[in-house]
């Protein structure tokens, strides 16, 4: 434990020195190192509803609700979108601006940008706050792993999956999660979101 905190201290010092040099050199400051328990430790290229592919580290910088879904799901997945909206409704407009929502597809074979865009439009999602995106097929298991979401693809292409809304801070650390999906959000979860967006 002592050794750990020593190491952390040294790492912190090293980072400070590096930042100092960068400032002297007039270079743009590099993004601070990710915490070890950040979900963004996982390299994850995502292709969003506009067809843009970026690593999900681009989502750093503000707290976010994160979940997994797929667009052709008839039952629970529309409820996941609904849950995100229900949480947003509990916030003031100023707080809403501070919060992002990222829905990651577990069905990249079918969820191309057009399919994702359709959901954005049908559900009238604010593109400034909501990101709907697909990972590469090989990465689905790993992103589900860091989010603690379980799923199985069925013979007919549908999925059997656990549903959760996960709140992460600006650096991708998980602050809270709820399995209560629907239009009546879990009050404890809402309280955690309010705290994360500053009040």
């Amino acid at each position, binding site marked *: 434990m002592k050794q750990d905190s020593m*190491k952390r201290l040294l790492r912190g010092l090293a980072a400070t020195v590096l930042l100092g040099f960068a400032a002297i050199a007039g270079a743009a400051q590099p993004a601070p190192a*990710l*915490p*070890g*328990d*950040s*979900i963004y*430790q*996982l390299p994850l290229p995502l292709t969003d509803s506009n067809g843009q592919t970026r690593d999900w580290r681009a989502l750093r910088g503000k707290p976010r609700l994160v979940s997994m879904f797929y667009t052709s*799901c008839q*039952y*629970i*997945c529309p409820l996941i979108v609904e849950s995100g909206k229900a949480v947003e409704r509990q916030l003031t407009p100023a707080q809403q601006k501070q919060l992002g929502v990222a829905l990651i597809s577990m069905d990249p074979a079918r969820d191309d940008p057009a399919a994702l865009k359709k959901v954005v439009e049908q559900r009238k999602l604010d593109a400034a706050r909501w990101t709907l995106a697909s990972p590469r097929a090989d990465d689905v*298991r*790993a992103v*589900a*792993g*860091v989010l*603690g*979401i*379980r*799923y*199985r*693809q*069925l*013979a*007919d292409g*549908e*999925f*059997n*999956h*656990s*549903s959760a809304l996960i709140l992460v801070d600006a650096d991708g650390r998980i602050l809270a999660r709820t*399995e209560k999906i629907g239009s009546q959000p879990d009050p404890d979860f809402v309280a955690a979101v309010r705290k994360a967006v500053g009040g």
Partner: protein
Amino acid sequence: MRARLAAPLLVLGLVVLPLAGLAAGAVAGRYAGIPGGQFKSVLGYEDAKNGVRVKTFALMRKPVTNAEFLAFLGRHPEWRRDRVAGVFAESRYLSHWAGPDTLGPNALPDRPVVWVSWFAAEAYCKSLDARLPTWNEWEYAAAADETRVDARSDPAWRERILGWYARSSKDALPRVGLQSPNVYGVQDLHGLVWEWTEDASSLMVDGDNRNQGDPDKGKFCGAGALSMNDRENYAVLMRVAMLSSLEGRDATANMGFRCARSAP
């Protein structure tokens, strides 16, 4: 793999044959080929009532050892226990090793590596251009005994496996490869350690006996929930319960792994 290597061997001719032959042997020797087939899993998949189709694949003959995992850490130090990101491995990851790059008395080189997370196991296999086996592949290979591809209905086979569960988990692990190979040439699928599968997080079964066959449907989206087809096969059911209870960053004293490859 063997087919892929055969062509260059013919072209290269006799001069380099011994060397190339060694390389081919290293790959072919570490994996056993498993011919595909139709398979009735111990899990009752509602969406696959007539069984699942397993494609031909290759499976490591033995679980990955401490020595092999140590060699991997030499090539990929980001997976050392003092460097790994917490999101990929809990604090007990490789905690039985004497140091981040030292095995020590509790982790002898020829023992299966344990206290490894799913993420670390996956990274190891990827580094060899391989992958973790799927649950169906694992169960399919593990249904065999020394002479039969499916020995599961034999009470003696079941008894033998259950004998292992009676052993104290506090005893030191034996070395890999002590058990006789099954009909495919694969060893230690039962009787040594639990093993990660690629889709461990697809096993959404409540391990609690009272709920077997009646998973909490509210917890999971969609139809096709799992139930237990074969409640007599405790050995395999315990594996399912174990895997369904773990998260990807978890590590336990008895959880190891081996890698698989798809047929070219």
